[in-house]
């Protein structure tokens, strides 16, 4: 009653005015909420932190992998000593034979023994060389395997890194952005509804306006 008296006109106008003002207040609140969410969304999008790939600095260590058997030396020094020893032994034996007047047949036998000894040395060197080649080949094979394993490690680290970046981006900012965007959509709906309520309230009042408009002509 008091409110109708304040506004004047017919009582339905006062009621309509308060209905309309409530709708206007709701529309203004929705507009403010929309601005707030838009500001928040902008900040979230603008300051989206760069997702760091924790595997980014993984480096291939394959260059450090070498074949330790690649350049194995053959122990020729020992072989040379053995040959020298055989030669010295032969010379000493020849000197002894010469001094004691032994037969030439003995000397021949000794020379043959020395030759056998030298052949043995040659065979030992050949054996060492063969062993080294085998070791080098085995080392090479091992090195290839290690290099391949290292490359595989790098590849899977890179793939894991890409997966991490994708996953982290998806789950972190996008969640907040999507949620805020959803709220923004909802508040836009609320704003539209408030405006519709406002229009409805005003339309109701305009029916009562006839009393005011009509009075213009009657007086």
């Amino acid at each position, binding site marked *: 009653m*008091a*409110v109708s*008296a*304040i*506004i*004047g*006109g017919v009582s339905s*106008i006062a009621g*309509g*005015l*308060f209905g*309309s*003002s*409530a709708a*206007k*207040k709701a529309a*203004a*609140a929705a*507009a*403010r909420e929309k*601005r*707030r*969410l*838009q*500001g*928040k*969304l*902008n*900040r*979230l999008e603008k*300051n989206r*932190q760069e997702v760091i790939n924790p595997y980014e600095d993984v480096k291939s260590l394959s260059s450090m992998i070498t074949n330790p058997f690649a350049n194995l030396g053959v122990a020729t020094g020992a072989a040379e000593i053995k040959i020298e020893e055989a030669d010295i032994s032969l010379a000493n034996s020849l000197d002894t034979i010469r001094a004691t007047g032994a037969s030439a047949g003995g000397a021949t036998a000794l020379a043959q023994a020395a030759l056998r000894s030298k052949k043995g040395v040659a065979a030992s060197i050949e054996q060492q060389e063969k062993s080294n080649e085998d070791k080098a080949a085995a080392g090479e094979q091992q090195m290839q395997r290690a290099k391949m394993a290292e490359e595989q490690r790098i590849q899977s680290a890179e793939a894991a890194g890409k997966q991490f970046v994708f996953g982290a981006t998806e789950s*972190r900012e996008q*969640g*907040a952005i999507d*949620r*805020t965007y959803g709220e923004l959509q909802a508040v836009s709906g609320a704003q539209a509804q408030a405006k519709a309520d*406002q229009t409805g*309230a*005003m339309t109701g*009042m*305009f029916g009562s*306006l006839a009393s*005011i*408009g009509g*009075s*213009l*002509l*009657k*007086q």
Partner: protein
Amino acid sequence: MEKNLNKNLFLQQFNESDAIAYNKDFTSGISDYNFQLLDNAYRNTGRVYAKLKLAIDSNRCQEETCAYELAEIKHLQEAPQLSLDFLSSLIAELSVTGDPNFDLNNDSKYTIANSIISAKPGFSKSDGYNVYLDLLQDGAQQIVFIGPAFEEPLVINNTALNALAESNTSLVAPTPDINKDMLRLLTEVGIFSPDMVGENGELTAGAKITEEYVIMNPDGTPDYEIIDIGNGKGRNILKYDLDKIEKKVTPFINAEVAGLLSSEQDAVAAWNVYISKGTSVEEDDQMAQNANAGDTSWSYTEDLPLMQDKKVLFEKKYKEYFMNNYLKQFTTNQLPTVQADAAVFDLAEAKKAKAQKFIDDNNL
């Protein structure tokens, strides 16, 4: 500024109290709210309209083109709709002064105007108040409030009010519902798992920060803090990596602040009512009305638009308010999730066991 604040505070308390109901002078007197805004505004318009119409019909206009008369008729025809639109906008603006978290730093003239327009006891014609709606010559309209509580008449023009509405600002700054905003923010900062959020969009009663933020021992078990609960008994509580939590939540808080600052007058209201003094939610609840910033409050007339230093300060204090009033409860006195570790135990024995473990771990 302080005078305005006190006036608003008095009006708020006066309107909310029943004091006037016990005032015999008031109850025995007449309360006349018969302001009749529309009736008074349109009282003579019929005659004016008729004169204008007659002048046009009988070729007795001021000028040959009847431009003046035609314009006046147009104004009169549009006036009723304008009046209703103006009044409804004004009522919507003024009603903010009655909101529970209204910022008392808003101009108290609007609180008085709202008391008149909503027929509050003590603001009737009998109490010396009046309000007029004037239809101006240029087609605009103005409302004038007068009365004992006004130092000078309060005049509001409909074109000014429309301009404010068009630019998304307001006569009276509404205060954002910080409690609602912060409860929602809790669910967004990424330290609670999604299953801890209830259907109402808020955290459930038993919500706990995810284990990712719990400080662990090298062996993967939680590094508990032991608290003394009296009578020689103790309990384990979880310890949280607060630096990690802060790093995680800060970008989300900053985004929230950026959203608030998109309406700076709302941010000023939030500052004055909640943020500035850093009061606790309990303190706010205990008070008759929300805390106001008092001498640290920001003025709508002097501090808007907000300078950069104030925005930075707002962000800092908003974060503190959130951390202290909303997040802290989840990082303090949290019992272990492992049932066995959550039991009450003898403090002396626990201390002995801890010392023994240290000796064993370090081969002492």
